[in-house]
């Protein structure tokens, strides 16, 4: 089965909505800035979405208030997505459309805030007694409420592979006949525990991140949100792209270090290729996980070298958006779809001195070359990996 991809949209530091993202990619304009988060003194760069804190939620969603849900709502407003959802729901019924969101940290930013003003008893004060918001399901619950979709709704939280895996679950749900369509998405927002947590693991760079560069010394954390409406082919006759395959795996190696030879990554890519019935050489472009950590880039290059040749262009777009964690999967799936739409393969930004020690070369400048088949990789803590392969619908 090919899963048709209808409307999609992305919001990140590299732009709010698709046109802004396209402009950033075309102009090679990073969305990263020096860390200006309040009360956070870590010397680093972040990918912050302007204006999230000013987003007001409709009154019926007020009880779900959090920065993460503000960002989710902001993202839903872009590119006519809500209209596309409403049109599809009208045709098949809102109960025949599922919701699958991916997130790493859900609304923990709101929980952090609650802990700055606990009651004298040490418990969470009334203003913050938001049952769904402190749950990992906060984004899935919020998006279902915000869109009026009433089909099964779930949130996947497997660290940085979360919103790549949403496509795999949606594929299974639709192929199985559980629903006719699924709104898949991912959202993660900047918060203190993520910045200080990654900092404690010595993974945060004090400079602009440099994926695959010999001088790379860590990640820049970003926030972002993306959605795609996916359905059976017959329901989306105008769809331009399809999900052809997905591969999920775990490293079985370490909680926060990738497998040195990229074992789990290779298994995920192999499973995606197998399901798509494609060979590695037929993949034109791969959007990498490419975080700019020493370990990720080394092992991902290793994994690529085990399957791909120089027929395939590969790059990381993390220096545009920052690492948006649980939202990275969908953001990079959308960047891959955009490369397939425009034929512009984004060259890795900020990689002026490609690391000669790495086992596979990355693209460092934008190259115009048609992308028939595009792939994206997402790898997370707990050794959790996902690879997705997309194709042109009229192929």
């Amino acid at each position, binding site marked *: 089965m090919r899963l048709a991809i209808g409307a999609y949209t992305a919001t990140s530091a590299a732009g709010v909505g698709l046109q802004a993202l396209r402009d950033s990619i075309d102009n090679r304009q990073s969305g990263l800035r020096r860390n200006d988060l309040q009360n*956070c003194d870590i010397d680093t760069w972040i990918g912050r979405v302007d204006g999230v804190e000013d987003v007001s939620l409709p009154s019926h969603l007020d009880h779900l208030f959090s920065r993460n849900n503000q960002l989710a709502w902001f993202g839903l407003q872009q590119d006519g997505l809500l209209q596309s959802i409403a049109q599809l729901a009208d045709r098949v*019924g809102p*109960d025949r459309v599922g*919701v699958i969101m991916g997130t*790493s940290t859900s609304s*923990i930013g709101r*929980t*952090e805030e*609650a*802990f700055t003003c606990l*009651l004298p008893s*040490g*418990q*969470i*004060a009334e203003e913050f*007694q938001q*049952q*769904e918001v*402190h*749950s*990992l*399901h906060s984004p899935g*619950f919020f998006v*279902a*409420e915000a869109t009026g979709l*009433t*089909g*099964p*709704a*779930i949130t*996947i*939280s*497997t*660290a940085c592979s979360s919103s790549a895996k949403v496509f795999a*679950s949606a594929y*299974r*749900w639709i192929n*199985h006949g*559980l629903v006719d369509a699924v709104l898949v998405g991912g959202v993660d927002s900047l918060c*203190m*525990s993520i910045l*200080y*947590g990654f*900092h*404690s*693991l010595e993974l945060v760079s004090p400079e602009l991140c440099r994926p695959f560069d010999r001088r790379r010394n860590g990640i820049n954390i970003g926030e972002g949100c993306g959605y795609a409406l996916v359905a059976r082919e017959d329901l989306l006759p105008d769809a331009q792209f399809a999900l052809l395959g997905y591969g*999920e*795996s*775990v*490293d*079985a*190696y*370490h*909680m*926060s270090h990738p497998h040195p030879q990229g074992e*789990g990554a290779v298994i995920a890519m192999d499973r995606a290729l197998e399901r798509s019935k494609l060979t590695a050489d037929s993949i034109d472009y791969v959007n990498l996980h490419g975080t700019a950590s020493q370990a990720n880039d080394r092992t991902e290059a290793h994994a690529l070298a085990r399957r791909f040749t120089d027929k395939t262009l590969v790059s990381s777009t993390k220096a545009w958006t920052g690492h948006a964690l649980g939202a990275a999967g969908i953001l990079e799936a959308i960047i891959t779809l955009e490369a397939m739409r425009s034929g512009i393969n984004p060259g890795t930004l900020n990689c002026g001195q490609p690391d000669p020690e790495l086992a596979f070369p990355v693209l460092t400048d934008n190259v115009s070359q048609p992308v028939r088949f595009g792939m994206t990789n997402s790898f*997370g*803590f*707990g050794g*959790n990996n996902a690879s997705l392969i997309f194709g042109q619908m009229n192929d």
Partner: protein
Amino acid sequence: MTDVDVVGLGVWSESFSNWEEFCHVLSGGSAETGRTLKPQAIAPNERRRAPLSVKMAVEVMDQACRMAALEPATVATVFASALGDMHLTEYMCRTMADAPQAISPTRFHNSVHNAATGYWSIATQSHCPSSAVSGYSNSVSMAILDGAIQAVEEQIPVLVTVQEVATAPAFKSVYEWTQPFSAAMLLSPVGMCSSNIASLRLNASSNLVEPPQLEDIPGIDLSGNPAARLLPLLIAIAEQRNADVQLPLSRGSSLAISIDVGCQARQSES
């Protein structure tokens, strides 16, 4: 409609620490309580680093695989919890409020929702697909549905684990449950494994249903614990009776689960 076999089960709470004790408690017996949880599936050095939430999950996952006599490295996993490890969340948020630079890197990486399945995969050397999900109060029904569909679509046994730790102190003004509970149900495509304990037929629909009233289990109060929504299924299987259970899935959908414990009869028919 989705049909799967249940081929293994695992349970843990403060009042029973495995399936045998669970059955014993249900039939009016009592079990030894207050024992330290020491899941044998993970190596002692990993066990020292693992938080209680991970130990609770790994313990029941191991029990279910043993009951099914299935090699753990051959099963996919779906872990579900409404809140994840609330105690780690509390630790991190308190640290952020007091002294953010003091955050422990180990506790930070243990705080990912997929920590339990991460530790499990390392212990069992499994590369099989592994997910961690939440549906808030509908985590149990969504995980069973998602896991069963994966079992059928991918033709692989799927180990569905549901758990909720005790409410952490600061969250007591928000959530009502007091006791931890974890359970695992190993779902397999129909007929794939020889040792099925029960068969499940799942039907998702737009019918609206109320969550079931939990039956009292002597000596333990799991009311309000989202993971305890699995209990009606577990109790029916333990008591060897067929049952129909309805659980909400989302605001506008529900899951009807028919439990058939007459597996031998079904097997001989086919």
